[in-house]
């Protein structure tokens, strides 16, 4: 037997394996791009806004999930000093949370927690009291589990959850703050998308029995305004790529992710330098909460707080054209409450 064969023993072999493994680990620490997958899902060519496109017919399952019962309003607007009271009043006017949340339901609440830059007084993130009120209402309606989640683009979720004040409020109300896990995005077909045909969407949002969308109404440099439809961008990966055809892609995403209820926090609204804010002079107290099962109606109404119309904001208009909801506020029943 040659000399070298006897000299390689198991112990030594294992040592070399360990050394090689350690090397591989270190190698992984070397410089790389940030942890976003670089590959783009196939999306086809970006399309320009096209006003003449006919509304796409959408499948029954993708229409607003909860049709109003006779006499119930399509949209409720509550105004008052207490964010908690107006949130509860707006939901009550739609028939109460029991209309949306069945006992035993898995509920996911999606606020806007876009960054960890500022606290909620700066109107860049959703009002914690509004979110907490929805958590309590959902639990009172018999929800089995209420999870609150968002994926910030500036700073980590851990720090943004705390800075926004939402973590404390939600935990006090009995809900869970869930961290969105990069391993749980699922490449999801978007059959009615005009530009997006598939995209990685968060599994727990797709699987939830009830999705409550709780944006804050605010200015957005790129999109004009960020409201309900835009807030759902927090449910996908590769958001940077959305901007290449932002409005159509938001509408496309909305054809797949359909919230049961949209509650727009307009307690404070950000009039300029959005979506991140930071200047209290840009914040306006409007003491309003808008709620509707129809995300397009809710956004269309919220646009009026900024002196605009739903038709002025492309993603709302595209959503209406695709049959995702009613943009014409004269065509729906609106209940206004002072609470």
């Amino acid at each position, binding site marked *: 037997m040659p000399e070298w064969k006897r000299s390689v023993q198991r112990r030594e072999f294992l040592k070399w394996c360990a050394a090689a493994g350690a090397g591989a680990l270190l190698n992984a620490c070397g410089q790389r791009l940030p*942890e976003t997958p670089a590959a783009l899902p196939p999306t086809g*060519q970006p399309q320009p806004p096209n006003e003449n496109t006919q509304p796409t017919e959408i499948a029954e399952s993708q229409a607003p999930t909860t049709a109003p019962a006779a006499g119930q309003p399509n949209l409720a607007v509550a105004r008052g000093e207490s964010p908690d009271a107006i949130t509860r009043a707006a939901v009550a006017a739609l028939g109460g949370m029991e209309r949306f949340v069945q006992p035993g339901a898995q509920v996911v609440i999606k606020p806007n927690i876009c960054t960890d830059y500022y606290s909620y007084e700066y109107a860049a993130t959703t009002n914690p009291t509004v979110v907490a009120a929805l958590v309590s209402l959902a639990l009172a309606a018999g929800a089995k589990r209420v999870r609150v989640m968002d994926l910030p683009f500036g700073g980590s979720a851990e720090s943004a959850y705390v800075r926004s004040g939402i973590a404390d409020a939600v935990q006090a109300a009995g809900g869970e703050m869930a961290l969105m896990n990069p391993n749980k995005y699922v490449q999801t077909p978007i059959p009615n998308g005009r530009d997006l045909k598939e995209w990685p969407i968060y599994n727990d949002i797709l699987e939830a029995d009830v999705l409550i969308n709780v944006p804050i109404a605010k200015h957005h440099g*790129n999109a004009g305004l960020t409201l309900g439809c835009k807030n759902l961008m927090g449910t996908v990966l590769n958001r940077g790529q959305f901007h290449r055809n932002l409005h159509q892609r938001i509408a496309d995403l909305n054809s797949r992710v359909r919230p049961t209820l949209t509650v727009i926090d307009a307690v404070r609204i950000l009039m300029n330098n959005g979506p991140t804010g930071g200047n209290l002079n840009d914040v306006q107290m409007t003491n309003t909460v808008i709620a509707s099962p129809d995300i397009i109606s809710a956004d269309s109404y919220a646009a009026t707080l900024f002196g605009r119309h739903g038709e002025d904001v492309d993603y709302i208009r595209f959503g209406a054209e695709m049959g995702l909801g009613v943009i014409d506020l004269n065509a729906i029943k609106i209940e206004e409450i002072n609470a």
Partner: protein
Amino acid sequence: MNPADWRRLRRISQAFFLILFLGLSILTNARGQAAPGAAPFFRLDPLLGLAALLAGRTWIAPAFLFLVTIFITLLFGRSWCGWFCPLGTLLEWIAPRMTRGKSVGRLEKWRLGKHLVWMAALGGALLGSSFYTFLDPLTMLNRAVASALFPALRHAVLHSEAWLYRFPLLWDALDAAHQAVIVPLFGSTPRYFDAALPVFLLLAGVISLNWITERFWCRYLCPLGGLLGMLSKFALLRREVEPDACTACARCSRGCPTATIDPEDNFRSDPAECIVCLDCMADCPTGAVKFRWQIPGWKPATWKDYDPSRRAALGALAAAAGTAALAGIDPVRQHPSANLVRPPGASLASIESLCVRCGECVRVCPTQGLQPSLFESGWHTLFTPRLVPRMGFCSYQCNACGQVCPSGAIPPLELAVKQSTPLGLARIDSDRCLPWAYNTPCAVCEEACPLPDKAIKVEEVQAVNAQGMEVTLQRPHVVREQCIGCGVCENRCPLDGEAAVRVYSILT
């Protein structure tokens, strides 16, 4: 207490400080303000303290904590190495058994090495550069943990987790573990380090020297050990062997981790080499080994052959002068690297003189954008911090790096001051930027800008894209007066590879 109890007490002390040091380093990694600084460890270190004071030519009141160590050393000798130093403890624990107490005769004269390093370090500091502090044992360990070992462990855990997520049945259990253990321990911030390999190899090299002989680093190379050893020549507590009780069984010399007990010289030892581990006292079957106060009859310990001669000391100072002179002609002074962004408030001057390369800022940075530099700013600022925005940006609500810096190389700026202190200036690369170069809509940089009035503004233009369609574009512009160079724009730019908006250094 009997001798065996002393040994036990020492091991408890070692374990306590090692766990405290690693615990601080690991549990609070990337936590920004929430991270308790390990500054007291570094401030207790006389080599770092003296280097910063000499090179910075400033009065740093908290740095004088190292006087405590000097005082203890003058009382008890080099007990820092045997009782406290986390690297010393690691070296003691990761020692192959066969080298225990092994004296390497031909290496004896190399005990001089550690003295040369500390003299060069302090000599360099006198001339304004704290370059050699990267060889300090605390900085070496902290750097390796913060920018190589812990990130590598995190990578291993997260990749194992990702693999398990292939099985949807496990998701509920994995979610619970992710939320309760993995994120609290490892955070959700990605960690990538350019310097991971060199930083790791330096520590690995020091540890692997243990295979030549136990505590090789402490005996021959450690500048802090050398400095404290020099002080220990004057210590009040010293090891003695009672000749009447000694049976010359040589258990003490065989077990001595620094092999300073000389069987040829009645088992006497050199206080400069003795780390007061007390193993010899515990091992002695006849109780002949004692540690005694030298109050009456104190005199400095004998100078050994391996101790620095005047010529050696002059050589070390000449090396220091040479180092400083070579550092002086580094082109970085005339032509700083365009991409070199320093932590908030730090300048080349403050980094060069005050930075002790401890890696604390790198450790706490919540985005892990701060990295130990290699040669980006010249070799003489090796392992000093720089911000790599593509890895992580300077978080608008964070000023932790300046708070944890033990020497003030990064000034402890108030948050409001930090928020208006420019680190650099963003620049749009209009040859790559989507709306500029390709008539494709994008405004992610503007969206992410944290400034209350936005340091990136967009200009709306109509253009025709490559498909011949009319599109509305928002082309970004940097507002020079507003931009603080935090780098979030560069970090978020959705282009693959290099960003189309980059932070460039500004001359300070």
